[in-house]
Every structure is written in C-alpha cells, then in structure tokens.
C-alpha cells in the first residue's frame, strides 16, 4: 500500500540542523502572532500545529514529539489570555499520535500528508473544544463549516510548508 511505510523508510534516520529545531517553532509562533495584524484571516491557520505534525511524523519519536508538542502548545497558550494548558494538551496528543503513526505511514507522500494533516487539524480542534467548553466552561461554538474550511486551508498550507522543511533535512 502506497501510504504505508516501507522497511527502508522505517530504517532511514532523519534529522535536521539544530537551528531548524530552534527557529522553526519560534518562526511559527512569531508569524502566527504578527501576520494577523496585516491579514486578519491568517488566524485560521495554525502554524505551530503544522510544526508539531511535521516534526513528530518525520522524527517518529513519540516521547520527544509529546514533550515538544506540549512546550509549543504552552507557548501558544501564553500568547493568549486563556489558561495555560489548552493548546499544550492538544498538541501533546497530536505529537504523540503523529509520531506513532509516522512509524507506519509514509510521511513523505503528499497524499498521506493531506489525509493525516486534515485529520489532525480536526482532532486538535476537537480537543480544544472539549477542554474549553467542558473543562473551562467558556463559550466556544463548534461549526462544521468553519472547521471544514480550517482543515482544508491548513492541509494545503501544510503541503507547501512540509515541502520547504524537507529541503532542510540531513539524511545519514
């Protein structure tokens, strides 16, 4: 099956230069905070989520992906006014799931990236909604059309974003 990872890919160890690990999350946070000033609809994107999905599915290390997702989510929480932990929990779950699936799925295939990015955006929003609505008891609607548009936009942006990050890989 095309979506499944081959034995060669599973054995292939992928890594990135150190500055990529440091700058990419910061750049994602900065762009997520700054660009809506110029283009207000940019906030429909979730660049930190795309960063978590990419590194988790590429590095395939569930523990690192969980901790990295939690840290990036907490940083995203810190930029909002809501309690810390909402995005942290959601992105920790996404990181763990993406890393676990990355072992079995060919993460460099555009089709597989389209599918799991779309699903992960939905999963991330669902976890957010449950936490905000039921744990924090704050008003937060769930609109299927909005979530669909959000998923589609993030998925197509992820294709470009992941392709750019692929160029920074160091293959051993």
């Amino acid at each position, binding site marked *: 099956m095309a979506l499944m990872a081959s034995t060669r890919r599973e054995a292939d160890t992928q890594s990135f230069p150190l500055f990529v690990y440091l700058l990419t999350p*910061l750049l994602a*946070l*900065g762009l*997520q*905070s*700054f660009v*809506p*000033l110029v283009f*207000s609809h940019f*906030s*429909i994107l*979730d660049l930190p989520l795309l960063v978590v999905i990419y590194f988790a599915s590429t590095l395939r290390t*569930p*523990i690192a992906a*969980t*901790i990295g997702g*939690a840290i990036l989510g*907490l*940083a*995203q929480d*810190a*930029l*909002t*006014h*809501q*309690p*810390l*932990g*909402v995005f*942290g*929990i959601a992105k*920790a*779950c996404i990181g*763990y799931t993406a890393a*676990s699936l990355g072992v079995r799925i060919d993460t460099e295939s555009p089709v597989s990236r389209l599918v799991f990015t779309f699903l992960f955006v939905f999963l991330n929003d669902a976890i*957010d909604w449950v*936490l*905000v609505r039921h*744990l*924090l*008891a*704050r*008003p*937060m*609607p769930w609109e299927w059309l*909005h979530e669909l548009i959000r998923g589609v936009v993030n998925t197509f942006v992820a294709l470009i974003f992941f392709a750019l990050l692929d160029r920074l890989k160091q293959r051993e």
Partner: protein
Amino acid sequence: MESFVSRYKNALVLIIVLVAQLLALAVQARRPAGPGIDQSSVSLLRYTVVAVVTPPERLIVGTGHWIHSLWSGYIDLIHVRRQNAALRQEVLRLRIEQASLAQDAAQGQRLEHLLDFKEHYIYKTLPAQIIGTGGTDQSEVLYIDKGSDDGLQQEMPVITADGIVGKVKDVFPHTSQVLLITDPTSGVGVVLQTTRTQGILKGRPYGQLQVVDVSPDSRIKPGDPVFTSGGDQIFPRGLPVGTVERILPDPEHDPLVDILVHPAAHLSALEEVLVITNIGDAQSPQEAKDIAESEAESEAAQKRASDILSERLPSLYDPNAPADTNPRVTTDASGNPVRPPAPPIPIHPDQFSPNAEPSAADMTPGKRWASVKYGTEDTKPSSHPPAARPNSTSTSASASSPAPASKTTPAKSPQTTAPSQPKKQILTNGPSLPHKPASTKHSATPGPTAPQQTTPPASASPSPQPQGGLR
C-alpha cells in the same frame, strides 16, 4: 516492572504530560477571573514567551514605520503647503465651533454637578503601537509596544479616535496584552442612544459584538449609535462603541433579545491605539485651558463681527438729531404726579356687575331675574324692562331689578360697561382708551373704585402712561 516501563514509556510520558497540564488547568480554572490572579509560575511562562516573541515583532513593526515615515515625510510631500493652509482654516473654524460646544458642555457639567453626577473625564492618554496578536480565533487579544515601564496598568481602557478597542489585561515591562471587546470573555457597559437602553456588550465567536439580554423595544433600529455607559467602571461614559446591526432573539432568555453591534473602531486593521492612563471626575487643567482659550477666541471673533456690523449698518439713534420736543411727562403742570388712567366706564350693567343681582331673599325659586337672550341673561334696561319680563314678579322685580336701578339709582349699579370692552382691556392692559365726555348718560355712573371718572384728569389724555402687565 522495568520491562513494563520500558514497554509503555511512550504512553507513560504522554499520560504524565497530560495529567500535569490538566492539573495546571484545573488550578487556573478554579481561581476566579480577574486582574493579577495569575500564579507567579504562569506569569513567568507568559513573560518568557512574550519576551521571546515580541522583540522581533517590535523590530518588524518599527522598521515598517520607519520606512513609511521616510516615504511620507520626505518623498510624498506634494501639495503639502496647500493642504496646510486649508487645514489652518479648518482649525480656526473648528476652534470657534468648539467654543460654542464648550459652553454647552460646561452648562451640562454644571447641571450634572447639581445632580451630584460623577462624570469621568479623560485626563491623559498614551499612544501605543500594535505589534502582535494572540494568533488564534479563540482569543481576541492584541499586543502593544507599551508596558509597565511606560506607566500602563491592568484594566486601563484602550481606544481609538473611532471608538473603544478593549482593555489592558496583562502588563509586561515593555509590552502589554490588550483584551479586545470582541472577545467572549470581555464585557462593556453600553447604552443605546435613541432608547437609552443599557446593556452589557460582549464578544461573539469569530469577532462579532452583541449586547446581551436586552428587553425588546420596537424603537431600536439598525444604525442606532451605541455608546459606553460608564457602568463598568473602566470606560468613561459617552465613548462611541458602534452601531446596531440587527436584533436577534435570545433563545435561552425568551422574551429578551440580543443586539448585534458593528464596532466603530476598525478592530481588524488597527495600527495605533490610545491607552487612557488617567481618568478623573473633573476637567483636567489642560482641558480647562483649552476651553478657556477657545471661549476667548470665540468672543474675540464675535466682537470683531459685531464691530464690523456696527460700522456698516446705520445707527438706531442719531447723535446729530435735535432734542426731543415731546418728552414723556410724569408730572402735571402743578408738579403733582400724573395718575394712571382709570378703567373704562361701563355703558350698562350686566349680570356680572357688582350689586346687579338681587339678593337671595328677593328671588323666587324657578324664576329668572332677567330675560334670556342668545343663551345668556339679558339685563339691558332699554330692551328688557323689568315689567316686561315674563317670569318676574311685580313686587320683587320692581323693587330689586338692577336695570331701572342703573338708570335711576346710580349708587346701586356702579359699574356699567360695554360687553366687549373689559375683555379687551384685560388682554391688552395697556394705555386706556380715551373716555367719553361726561355728557353721556353712562358717564354719570361712576363706580366705587373710580370715583374721579366723572372728571377725568388731564393725564387721561390720548397720551397716557403705559402700565405694566400683559403685552
């Protein structure tokens, strides 16, 4: 045990991370919302992230403004001189207009002071630059480039010239977080201008505004302005909030409605804002000085205008005219003060004349003492002599009828007047008409209040002194 940990270490790490964050969330959610309740660790984390993220944003925004100011300050200066002249004229016109408005405002303030109403005036504002956002749809927050080092504190209102924006939520040394009015957790006390309906403005998902739980009122129409009411103790009263967009029924509170409001400030394209750093219940010295200057300029302008008019228009009093040949005389030839004119002399008595009505002992129940003509009792002596009255008795009518008494016994019918003349005199109450000479038959019937009517004084001439009264 070791094999269990090593086998499920990934899941264990996930569980530990999730449980730790859930506990942290529970602790934060248990604490009441309000300024300054964040734990020190939470504040430290927020501070760290903001300190890392915002400096590049400040750099980008600063560079952009430097380029923009370079362009607008040195390159794009065409027609500036002409615009400057036009703006100066506009400033002069607005100053005069402001002076007239300032007087109205001062009067309003005096009235409010009389009513012991505490008005809040904006003392001081601090301009700030928007450098970032919260980055998500769920959190409508902005970051500005001013913080506690610039004197900012939590709960300070943030506005633009168009309307209110939000309030300061978290303050860092060089940055502050502003909670927009479109956030669902925000609340602003507002009032509708047309109906004076008060309510609470809250944010809706996806950046909309609504006034929640308002009593339905058919007078509320789209386009009605909405202002701050000052009831939230954060925003001063009277700041523009927006306009009514449409009215929606509130399904959770059936008779009540929600009013969607279109914000006055362009919240999606903000660049600069003003943070109100000082609010008082009196005018600031600068405001008082500005108003005084404007009033002085307005008075000077009005004085100049009146001087120009007085030079151009002919004067009402001619200084070169001869002396008045007929000055108003207040004394007669002997030096005695002139008496005011007396009331007019009645021509004949009517039912309202004093002593014209017979005493109750002389009247018979069910019988009229005067004939009825045109719906009123006619007491004219010439047309209805007492003997001709159909219902009058011979004894009482002959003894007490006022009509013959007015003719024969003037002392019993002192006032005889024309039917329409007294009413006219009451209405005008001005100079009395010239009295008829004493040769007429009614002129010999002086009333008790005007005994000298028989010999009208010289002052009762066609040029009497006016008396005060209705004009």
